[in-house]
């Protein structure tokens, strides 16, 4: 049970508290809910970071000396609600907006943050796959300094990260999306709110002028101990159009590389099959966005089975 709660007013104060053993709390959507269902008791010492306005910022920052590409800075305190409604993110980092728009319910999205989602390190987290596909990094800061860690190196297993106990995730950095880049996140869900991904896939695509693939990345949700980056895509996709043939090949690749478990939500067999379907759909949507098409956020509600009921009702039944 928590005996001390420090409400930090500056980042230094928060980092000092963490150096002394406090755990950070922002929206509390994982920490508090987890404690209430008996997953893990609340830490004895907590430091609330929800009033640190400097962590609630979205903007571009210059790249480093080794790679001068500008980066998108998403402060750790930025909520899912902000992400899904942010014009820049929705337009150019659509996969992340797709993911944030699917998290929990409106109230979860209002208090749940990107920093919390990333650091909770659930293999079923929604923002993980699109962030990994976009090559995102986490900025970890402690009283002794700051470092930037690619997400692939941050997540070490279900609920575990390579961050030290005194390190606070202060931001997520995403390389600026250049040219005709598009991204998307699609998940398998049994219902449309208060849901967790059964499986999911995030994709980021850059197209050549002729519409063939110049660059592509896909990451998979809930089919391994961490979010899983798909390997071997280049051989399949570079220089080819995103058509039924190449998309089916990616679906097979995703099914092959997945290492899902069986649990209450799905069997390993079903997960292995459906993650391929999700990979194909995410890549297809990312490709269309890269080609300049607008697909509403989130893809799950804009397309196919998830499309709005009004559109369906208009073409027949409710007359």
């Amino acid at each position, binding site marked *: 049970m928590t005996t001390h709660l420090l409400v930090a007013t500056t980042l230094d104060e928060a980092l000092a508290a963490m150096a002394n053993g406090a755990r950070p709390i922002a929206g509390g959507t994982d920490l508090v809910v987890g404690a209430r*269902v008996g997953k893990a008791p609340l830490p004895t010492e907590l430091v609330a970071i929800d009033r640190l306005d400097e962590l609630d910022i979205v903007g571009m920052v210059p790249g480093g000396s080794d790679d001068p590409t500008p980066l998108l800075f998403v402060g750790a305190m930025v909520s899912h609600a902000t992400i899904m409604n942010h014009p820049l993110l929705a337009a150019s980092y659509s996969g992340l907006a797709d993911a944030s728009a699917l998290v929990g*319910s409106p109230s979860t999205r209002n208090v749940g943050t990107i920093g919390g989602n990333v650091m909770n390190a659930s293999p079923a987290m929604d923002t993980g796959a699109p962030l990994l596909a976009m090559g995102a990094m986490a900025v970890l800061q402690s009283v002794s300094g700051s470092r930037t860690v690619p997400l692939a190196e941050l997540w070490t297993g279900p609920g575990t990260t390579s961050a030290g106990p005194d390190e606070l995730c202060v931001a997520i950095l995403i390389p600026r999306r250049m040219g005709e880049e598009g991204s998307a996140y699609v998940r*398998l*869900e*049994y*219902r*449309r*709110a*208060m*849901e*967790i991904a059964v499986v999911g896939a995030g994709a980021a695509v850059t197209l050549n002028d002729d519409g063939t693939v110049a660059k592509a990345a896909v990451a998979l949700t809930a089919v391994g101990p961490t979010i899983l980056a798909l390997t071997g895509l280049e051989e399949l996709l570079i220089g080819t159009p995103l058509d039924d043939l190449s998309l089916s090949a990616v679906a097979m690749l995703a099914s092959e590389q997945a290492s899902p478990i069986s649990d*209450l*939500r*799905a*069997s390993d067999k*079903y997960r292995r*099959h*459906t993650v391929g*379907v999700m990979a194909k759909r995410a890549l297809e949507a990312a490709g269309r966005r890269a080609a300049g098409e607008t697909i509403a956020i989130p893809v799950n509600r804009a397309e*196919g*089975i*998830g499309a709005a*009921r009004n559109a*369906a*009702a208009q*073409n*027949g*039944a*409710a*007359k």
Partner: protein
Amino acid sequence: MTTTEIPRFVRADGPDKVTGSGRYTADLTLTGMLAAKFKYSGISHGRITRLDVTAAREMAGVLAVLTDADVPDVHYDPQIKDRTLFARDIVRFEGEIVAAVAALTPEIAEAAVAAIIVEYEELTPILDPEAAMDKSSPLVHEDWESYEAGSWLVRSGNTASFSSLERGDVDAGLAEADQIISSRYVADGSHAAPIEPRAVVAQWEGNKVTIWTSTQVPFDARAGVCETLQLPTNRVRVIVPHLGGGFGGKCGFHFEAHVAALARTAGRPVRLVFSREEEFTIPDRRREGIVVELTTGVRKDGSITARKANVVIDCGAYIADTAFFPQLAAMHAVGPYLVPNLMVESQIVYTNHQPSGSVRAPTAPQVCWALESHIDEVAKAINMDPVKFRLKNAVDTGMVGPLGQTYEEIGLRRCIQQATEAAGYGQELPENEAIGVAIGWWPSFASASGSYVKLDDDGAGQIITGAQECGTGAVMTLRQLAADELGMKPEDFEIIYQDTATGPYDMGATGSQTLLNNGRAVVEASQQIAEQLRELAADRLEAAPADIVLADGKAQVAGSPESAVPLSKLAAIAGSGKLLLGHGSGSPPVAPPIVGANCVGDQGMASWVGPQFSCHAVRLRLDPETGVTRVISVHADHDSGTIINPMGAHGQVEGAIIMGIGQALTEGTRYDETGKQMNTSLLEYKLQTAADSPSIHTQFVEVFTENAGPHGAKGLAEAPNIATAAAVANGLAKLIGSPMRQLPMTAERVWDTISEGGS
């Protein structure tokens, strides 16, 4: 009636609930109140070899620890007395209460529960109800024969209750058929899942106890306390604060006696509040798993020649209120169809699962799902459109039904015609979309029920009733009935309810019966006051009482509205003389006789008062690559007699349909191999959310029924929960090419069925 024409219905309890000013049981705090926790068996089947509560009793802050040794030696349950408050010798499901603790805080109570030592000789769990029927099966209740039980029950070993329905000659009927179709369907158990986990608070004053509890049936809860703690009814008062939903799951007597016993021993008030996990696993009100086997003989012209069926219901460890389920399930295996020859055998069988109990339309959604899936198979076998098949075979006004009940005017065929027409049935649909259609029926339950109505000297009204509001709006609608009789407005009445010490008996929020029975009582009580008001007005207006009309808050002479006196004035006169007090109860309507059928284990479920009928047409879309199904729209037509409160009625249908979609697609109890439930949280037990709700179009086929409730009303709370899952199944079967054999029809099961070669 379309949505725009529905008059505004202002619920008396609405503002309290919406603003948060209303109080639920778990909100109550009494001076010196303790927290209760239970020690559960945690195993599905075992013999207690050691039970030691010494350490728990000695813990600081623990004021009471009770076991079977500390309460009267009483077996209870309404139809078969197979249960004790605390486990005695044998534990029969994972949620069996072995001991109860009351302590200063929930944390201390939890630590005390952990300090209770129980050792078991583990016994093999009996989990498959079909296997449990075998004579060689071990028994869930070794002593079943010694239990006191209703003489009408047919019992044998693990078969807790058996019923059959028989008419004509089923073998001869099958011999006449051109085609015989046989199917087997398996429905998993599910849950009522009310938003409020249950809570109980008990406080003794002298030798009397007051119990605040989240029950749908306060009088049943009182009866259970009186039976198990051996108290007369007038020393037990049960009060229900606002109830946070029930859906049947809060019917019956549950933990009121445990908490009252703790409070008596501790000498302090005690409060029990369930966690969500406890709400899923402990109460004896799981919706039953059912296996249904159906065989139908049909002629090429579409007429049914015979039906043979076998229904096996998973009772779980104790009978609770389920002894009548076999006969009710058997009726649903027949359905509202003309079937000249039938033989249905139906049984509820003990297992080591959590006990089943009445959840909204018990047995009906599952068996209707099986029967209506089967009916579509039968129609397909003779190349007949399934809607045409239903119109040909459905019961109708003046007909003799399959069990020999002759129907007054009923609206089933109109329901089928209207729902399918409104849904656009038969039109071309986009790829991967289909419309499934199913019909259902359900009784109205007649019961004793009472109410008082009074007008005080300022003319303000009160309805003092034993009826229980579980969210349906039925009790709220009582105001409208009283207002109509007295020429007043619903808002002129306050309702005093949910307190066994003030209201007369009512069966509770169960069996869709509140408006049907308590409505009659309120009308009768109001009529007595109306009579008095007419007499008072007649004196003042120099007219005959028969010529006085009560309207707009006044008593006036018929035909001369200028000759009138306000009711408040009459109430003031009565206030210093003969008071305006009415009391109503009335005789419950009686079901018509059954003719020409034979019912073994008959429990009065083969002939129905105020039979209700429905047709649901569900339009859905399937994602064939994943098996995910999305319901787009539901057209629901219902004959529930006269609709008293249209807005309340529409709300009932909409809620029931969303619940039905959950049963169809995402809800279902999952067990491990030892019989313990695995999905005991709202993340893993997937209720439908508002975001999943389809567009719902409800129409009522209002048929006046003499033999029913006030103004010809039938029940309504359960009927709309029956046909939805079946209609979803029939839509899916069209898209997959073969029926789904297991409920819920989860995405993975649909995908499996598609992968196995459905076209």
